[in-house]
C-alpha cells in the first residue's frame, strides 16, 4: 500500500476545547495505523506544545501534584512526536507569527516553526487534510 499522509490543522488553545483531545486521539490513531501525520498549529494551538506548562495540585480537593496526575498538552505533544519520530513520521509545525504574538517560542523538542505556506504544501502532498476550527 502506498504511503498515506494525514494533515491536521489545529486552532484551539490548550485547556479550552474538547477538540484538542479529539485531535490528539486522531493523530495517535493515525500513527498507530502506519499513517504519516502533519500538524499545522495555528493561532492559540501553538501553545499546545509550550514547554513551560506545569501540572498543578488541587487545593480544593487537597490533592498533591502527584495525586492529581494533571495531564499537560505539552506532554501529550511530546509523546506524539516520540511516536512519530521514525516511521510513520509526525511533523509538527507551529505558525511562527502566532508564536511570536503569544511569546510561546519555548516548545517541546521536535516542534518546527513555519507559516501558512507550509500548511499549503502539507495539504497538497497529503492523502487528506482535516481542519479543526475554533468554534
Amino acid at each position: 500500500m502506498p504511503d498515506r499522509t494525514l494533515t491536521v490543522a489545529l486552532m484551539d488553545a490548550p485547556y479550552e476545547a474538547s477538540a484538542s483531545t479529539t485531535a490528539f486521539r486522531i493523530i495517535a490513531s493515525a500513527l498507530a495505523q502506519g499513517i504519516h501525520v502533519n500538524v499545522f498549529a495555528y493561532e492559540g494551538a501553538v501553545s499546545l506544545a509550550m514547554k513551560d506548562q506545569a501540572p498543578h495540585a488541587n487545593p480544593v480537593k487537597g490533592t498533591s501534584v502527584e495525586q492529581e496526575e494533571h495531564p499537560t498538552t505539552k506532554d501529550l505533544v511530546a509523546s506524539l512526536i516520540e511516536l512519530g519520530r521514525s516511521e510513520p513520521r509526525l511533523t509538527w509545525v507551529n505558525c511562527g507569527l502566532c508564536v511570536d504574538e503569544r511569546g510561546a517560542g519555548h516548545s517541546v523538542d521536535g516542534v518546527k516553526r513555519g507559516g501558512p505556506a507550509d500548511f499549503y504544501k502539507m495539504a497538497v502532498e497529503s492523502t487528506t487534510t482535516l481542519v479543526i476550527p475554533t468554534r
Partner: protein
Amino acid sequence: MASQYVFIESRDPFDSPDTGFVADTATALHQGGRPVTVFLVQNGVLATRAAARGSHVRRLAEAGVTVLADDFSLRERGIEAGELSAGVRPASIDALVDLLVRPDTKTLWH
C-alpha cells in the same frame, strides 16, 4: 468515482441550531448519489439518544446516511448502546481515521 464525504459533527444540536446545516448538506449529497458518513463526536453524540426530541439523527439515518458515534464520547456522557436512535452505530476513532484516508474523501469538521 464519486467523492466520499465525511462530516464530523462535534456540536450539541440542542445549543447549536446550525447542526441542521450539516444534516441538510449530508442528506442532499447522499440523495445526489454520493457516499456520505456523519461521524458524531464530543457533544455531537448528545443527539444520538432515541428519546432526544428534535434530533436530526433519525432523519439522517432514515435518509440512508451512515451515522457513526464516537464510542469514547458516548462513554464520557454515559450514553449506552441500548439508548441509541435506530441507525446509529458506535465507532472507534480508528474507524474515523480509516474513513479519512480513503481515496477521494472530502472531510468537513463542524
